[in-house]
């Protein structure tokens, strides 16, 4: 489905639209059968019209059967479902809660998610099969069913052992998904282990496009309040309003480090703490190593007694010995403080690390864990940028979505 949208999606669409035409004709002939002298009242006409459009929607809705609830969050409820015609084909149905009485219209998250998933089809991006509305006027997204949980679950589970070959496989899938987004001018802006879901065949899929947006036109501002803190790059912490795809690359780097260490690498308890942790780990940003950094809106002059020099290759090699010299070099290129020096997703894919031994594990042989169904429910109901069950739960700041309105 995800691989060949053109083939699988369009026939059904053309079929349904010609269906619609048939129905239109049927209605048309029916109303003329009623006899011209009894002009249909506008109300009944409206009803038959309603029925028509609803009919199409119902056709889609009836394709699926809801089985059980997988999870519920502030923003959505996720159900396990399957195709009516084929009980073994599972889907996840994400029902977005429209706030009561349409007080504020549809939320930006819901809009973003639908908008981008409709257009992006790639093996490493969660597939959107259908969208339908239900009677109580909720929008439901029919998503690919990903039963094996997410990367966070594997990282945290001490009973699961994995090696460099496995990390390489996961990183490859993640980077290809992100590369595809960027290639299509979409920034994901919320990459983190619990947004990386795992399909039954082991494929990693990028999910949760609630914070995604397309690249802004040059000189147009974007919000810097995106990406969950631990994965947020220094330029966003300093309040940059114009940025590029490398914000996602920083997040990929953080996921890489976390996969190796099995704990988040720089886990700040506040935005300020996050900056100081990044400085301690990678070096203090200065005009010398990052021209223009002091001009950023939220830039804070560092304490002169605590200047950390920019870390070189040895540091990465010492911290992350398991991935070897080439792997350390790759990680370093993702963690450049100056966004202009950071690699793009495309450059990452061209890096020599992928060619060094060991080869990435085949996706079928990757370590896996059961009980991921519930996890998928939780992952899909979380709002973008939200952190859950972390040691800093209470300190986690909610993103201020009103600032973007």
């Amino acid at each position, binding site marked *: 489905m995800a691989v060949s949208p053109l083939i699988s999606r369009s026939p059904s669409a053309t079929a349904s639209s010609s269906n619609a035409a048939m129905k239109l004709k049927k209605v048309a002939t029916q*109303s003329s059968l009623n006899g011209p002298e009894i002009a249909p009242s*506008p109300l009944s006409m409206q009803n038959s019209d309603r029925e028509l459009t609803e009919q199409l*929607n119902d056709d889609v809705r009836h394709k699926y059967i809801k089985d059980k609830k997988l999870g519920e969050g502030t923003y959505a409820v996720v159900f396990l479902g399957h195709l009516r015609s084929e009980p073994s084909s599972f889907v996840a149905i994400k029902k977005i809660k429209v706030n009561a009485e349409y007080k504020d219209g549809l939320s930006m998250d819901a809009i973003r998610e639908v908008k981008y998933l409709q257009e992006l089809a790639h093996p490493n991006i969660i597939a959107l099969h259908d969208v339908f509305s239900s009677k109580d006027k909720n929008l439901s997204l029919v998503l690919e069913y990903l039963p094996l949980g997410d990367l966070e679950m594997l990282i945290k589970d001490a009973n699961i052992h994995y090696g460099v070959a496995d990390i390489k496989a996961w990183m490859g899938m993640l980077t290809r998904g992100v590369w595809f987004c960027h290639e299509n001018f*979409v920034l994901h802006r919320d990459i983190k282990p619990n947004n990386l879901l795992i399909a039954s065949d082991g494929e990693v899929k990028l999910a949760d496009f609630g914070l995604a947006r397309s690249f802004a036109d040059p000189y147009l501002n974007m919000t810097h309040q995106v990406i969950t803190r631990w994965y947020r790059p220094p330029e966003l912490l300093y309040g940059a309003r114009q940025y590029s795809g490398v914000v996602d690359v920083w997040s990929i780097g953080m996921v890489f480090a976390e996969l190796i260490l099995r704990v988040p690498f720089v886990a700040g308890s506040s935005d300020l703490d996050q900056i100081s942790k990044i400085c301690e780990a990678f070096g203090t940003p200065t005009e010398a190593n990052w021209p223009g950094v002091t001009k950023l809106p939220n830039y804070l002059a560092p304490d002169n007694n605590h200047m950390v020099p920019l870390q070189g290759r040895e540091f990465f090699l010492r911290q992350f010995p398991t991935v070897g010299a080439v792997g350390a070099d790759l990680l370093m290129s993702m963690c450049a403080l100056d966004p202009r020096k950071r690699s793009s997703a495309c450059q990452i894919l061209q890096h020599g690390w992928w060619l060094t031994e060991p080869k990435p594990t085949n996706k079928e042989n990757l370590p896996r864990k059961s009980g991921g169904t519930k996890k998928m429910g939780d992952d899909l109901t979380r709002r973008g940028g939200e952190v859950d069950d972390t040691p800093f739960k209470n300190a986690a700041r909610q993103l201020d979505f009103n600032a973007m309105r």
Partner: protein
Amino acid sequence: MAANYWASTQRRHWLFTRERLADIRESFKERDKAAHNQFPLPDQRLLNIYFSQQLIKLGKRTSTRQQALATAQVYIKRFYTKNEIRQTNPYLVVTTAFYLACKMEECPQHIRFVVAEARNFWPEFIAPDVSKLGECEFALISEMHSQLIVHHPYRTLSELQPELSLTSDEVALAWSVINDHYLTDLPLMYPPHVIAVMAIIVAVVFKPSQTSFHGSAAPLAGAMRDGGMNILSALTEKNGGGPPPRIQKLVGWLAESEVDIKAVIECTQELVSLYEIWEQYSEKHCKELLGRMIKGKNLDK
């Protein structure tokens, strides 16, 4: 402008042939002849002019970007391929399309603000209750099968500017031609790059001498007719002096490109007829007919 046009939902689901559009509209008419007789409406293009002027009014206070207005116009068009206008409150549809397009083009406005602004202009047709707009937004999204990304010709225009060394005047003119094409069915019929090429040709070849052509389309229509003859003669007469070098360059580029020339010609035709019908446009007339229809059918409830 996210994603890839060639794989987009716009290309796969929202391109119609002229005949298909005519069929759809005919079937609406067939179904409800009475309403069509009772509430005649002006030519679709004149209505589009009216809608776009209302959108501009809405966007003015917030200085909304042209791209959002363009997206809103496409939404309105898509919506009315699924729904008969006589069963809707067009003012509510216009307002909702504006609201949704703003969110989509990353310049969101608060729903209360949009409703207040709309009530400012059409107090008798927009209810103060914001939930109406929310409900209509939902309907709009469902009708469009939540396929919301619209690809516009503006980007192609800016990409081709250096390649064809267009002057800033030409770009400005092509830009307003693109703005005008939203008043026709062209956005539902042709891919954005074809429209952009058409706009460039119009700007370079016909180059109406008066700079302030906007608003009074009639001279442009005339200029295009004359210019059309010129380029035709220029193209056919190969041995003569030949066309001026600028046009020659454009013709050369077109010949090498794989742009569908026939489609470009069709687009130009469509635009010429738009400018011709524009002369009949009367804001008052549109307003009256729409008002009569909405009141007559109680669509403003």
